[in-house]
């Protein structure tokens, strides 16, 4: 009896591409890491006070190197103050916020099996903003604000999933996103309500916080965003292959031996933590979490082992460059959220047109 074999398609180029991406898949994130570093140093040279690139690099290298500074540094006191107090905090804030948004958007898209979501769309950002504003109403400490923002973000996600479950849609991602939109809208109206009832003495602070820009970055704010973001990002990086599994579908992942519920809530908690700390420090920044994973996917494909680091670094680069443009070209300080939306929406529209709807939702 003759063996039946499947017809072999001509797939030679694809095989070669695949081999390349397997062997050099880490190269792009590496290149991006270097790119982010260079962009950070270049950003330190933007501003009214003159600062050569090498001088900025030297100061940052000495600041970051965990040993005492030289006694007679080859830079002036003013140069160091400009870097340490004015520019580096802002550059770091933009970088870390972008990194967090990139990583959380990528993880969330994988988790919800839909490339159309970002933390803003599924209501995490609004929930976190609501938590933060309540904390400010009750005069919490910075840690308390992050904690409350985190609880708000988690609450929003629980409500989103709960609502989707109520409609018996289970893990149907379109229903899940719709629920997220509803929950987000609900939290936004709660924020408006709190703004309305809060005493006049607290209102300016709240509005200032909600508008949130990268202006006014300092070591305290950096600590507020860096510690949660870097820790949660590291854990997500370790889990990044598992996000592939989560993106398969509940039943399938479960039969492969994945603890779907536990893993999903772990990822949601980490994403909420990142978004909460970002919102607590720099206000709601939309679209980054949606645009960046798309661009990253164009570069390295859908495998989250490569996608997550690439998304994180691209997010950092994206927000950092946008902030630089805001800082250098537009002298008026536009809130960064406005700017990301301004750039993000056309990019999403372009991707939508380019992909002709492929990979958007269900076939």
């Amino acid at each position, binding site marked *: 009896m003759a063996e039946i074999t499947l017809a072999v398609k001509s797939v030679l180029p694809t095989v070669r591409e695949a081999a390349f991406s397997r062997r050099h898949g*880490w190269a792009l*994130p*590496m290149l*991006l*890491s270097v790119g*982010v*570093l260079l962009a*950070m140093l270049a950003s330190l040279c933007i*501003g*009214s*006070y003159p600062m050569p690139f090498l001088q900025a690099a030297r100061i*940052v290298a000495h*600041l*970051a*190197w*965990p040993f005492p*500074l030289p006694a007679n*540094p080859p830079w002036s*006191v*003013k140069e*160091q*103050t*400009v870097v*340490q*107090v*004015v520019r*580096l*905090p802002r550059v*770091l804030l933009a*970088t*870390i916020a972008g*990194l967090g948004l990139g990583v959380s958007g990528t993880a969330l898209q994988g988790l919800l099996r839909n490339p159309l979501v970002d933390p803003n769309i599924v209501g995490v950002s609004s929930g976190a903003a609501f938590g933060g504003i309540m904390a400010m109403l009750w005069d919490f400490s910075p840690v308390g604000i992050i904690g409350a923002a985190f609880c708000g973000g988690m609450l929003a996600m629980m409500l989103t999933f709960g609502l989707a479950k109520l409609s018996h849609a289970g893990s149907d991602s379109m229903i899940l996103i719709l629920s997220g939109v509803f929950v987000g809208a609900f939290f936004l109206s709660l924020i408006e309500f709190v703004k309305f009832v809060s005493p*006049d003495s607290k209102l*300016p*602070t709240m*509005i*200032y916080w909600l*508008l949130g*820009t990268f*202006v*006014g970055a*300092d*070591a305290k704010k*950096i*600590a507020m965003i*860096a510690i949660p973001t*870097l820790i949660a*990002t*590291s854990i997500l*990086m370790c889990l990044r292959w598992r996000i592939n599994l989560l993106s398969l579908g509940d039943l399938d992942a479960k039969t492969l031996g994945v603890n779907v519920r536990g893993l999903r809530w772990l990822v949601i908690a980490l994403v909420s933590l990142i978004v909460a700390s970002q919102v607590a420090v720099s206000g709601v920044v939309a679209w980054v979490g949606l645009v960046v994973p798309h661009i990253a996917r164009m570069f390295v494909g859908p495998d989250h*082992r490569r996608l*997550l*680091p690439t998304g*994180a*670094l691209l997010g*950092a680069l994206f927000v950092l460059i946008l902030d630089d443009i805001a800082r250098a070209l537009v*002298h*008026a*300080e536009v809130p960064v959220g406005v700017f990301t939306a301004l750039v993000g929406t056309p990019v999403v529209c372009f991707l939508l047109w380019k992909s002709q709807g492929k990979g958007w939702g269900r076939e």
Partner: protein
Amino acid sequence: MKRSRKWLELYWVAPLALIALMSLGLLRALPHQAPPAHGRTVTGDDGQSVVIEEPFRGICLTYGFLFPNWYLEDTHAPDLLVYAGTADQRKWFSGNALRLAYPQLLNKESLWDPRVFRFAHDGYIEIEAMMAYNPGVYLGVAGDYTPIPLMRRMGLPTLSNWGHAKGGEKAGLSTARVNAALIGNPALGDAHIAEYWRDVNELKQELHPGNLTLLPKVLLMSASRLNRRQIGVVGDDTDWSNLYYPRAGVANAASGHQAMSYDAERILAIDPETIVLAGIATGPRPWESPQEFMHDPRWQGLQAVQQKRVYRMAGVQDWSPGGLMFIPMRTRWLAELLHPELLQPRLRQILRDHFRNDFNTSLTDEEIDKQLRIDENAGSVGYERFTRSGAAARNEKSLQ
């Protein structure tokens, strides 16, 4: 080979570690700025001192919209300014009475730079642009949401002034002292304070507000012409209620209310005898003039409109609120308006004297008319006493 691959999978650690190290670098102590070899110490209104290097390199006014005015009122030293404010502040100053004393400031481009400072939301300050001015001292209002703490941490010589958030008399007095000390002439501060008390006491002796039994009720408010919901009133929580009303012998018709956006019905319910339109609303300018107000259908039921007792406040944009020189003048205007039978109309003369004595500037009658808003108040009852002829006639009458 397999071992190396395992390490390669950790490539994402590198950028995160780099960012973490840079963040930790922020925690390093800032470099110590050597104190100036020759300097004098000035203490701000928050108790913090600053050493100002000699020779004095001038003053940079930072956080505080009315800083140019307060500074000039207190010091009469425009030449020490190296930075006065933003384009907005310049525009505001160009409509202000003090421009008559110091017209040269408006034409000095370097004093006004829109990039250094923004008042939107947060009072953001472009520290780097400001560092370029390199003055002897930066003047600002201390507070958590001002750039002053940051400027202090950077080691910039920063002096806090006008620190009383509510403004009022205390802030004016301490500001006068600090400003005088700042320019190295403490005696000038004492002189201004003495002058202030002289003006206050003069009015007190003429009016004897303590003996008045029936205080006329007046509502200070403003209504935006563009946004009809933006109606502001002076409630219990502003300087007016404790500083101006008792000294002018009047009562606040909106007593028991807070200053905020009001709806028209609340004003109708208050129905004050006299309405003074002061620029206090949160809404967009322009505000309604007395003429517009009296023809606005919303206000036709008010007794103040029916009796044409609606006035534009004198010096509404010309006199900086809270300045030591103008507090007594505003009080006096209110008193002269509402107690015509008790007070001689002397405001024109007082204004003229102040500008001549303090700024060595002669005001023309037209300039005084503009500050007293004679044109706008032409249709209101009894305002002719503030006009040139009115004041003269009245004074003649009292002499007889």
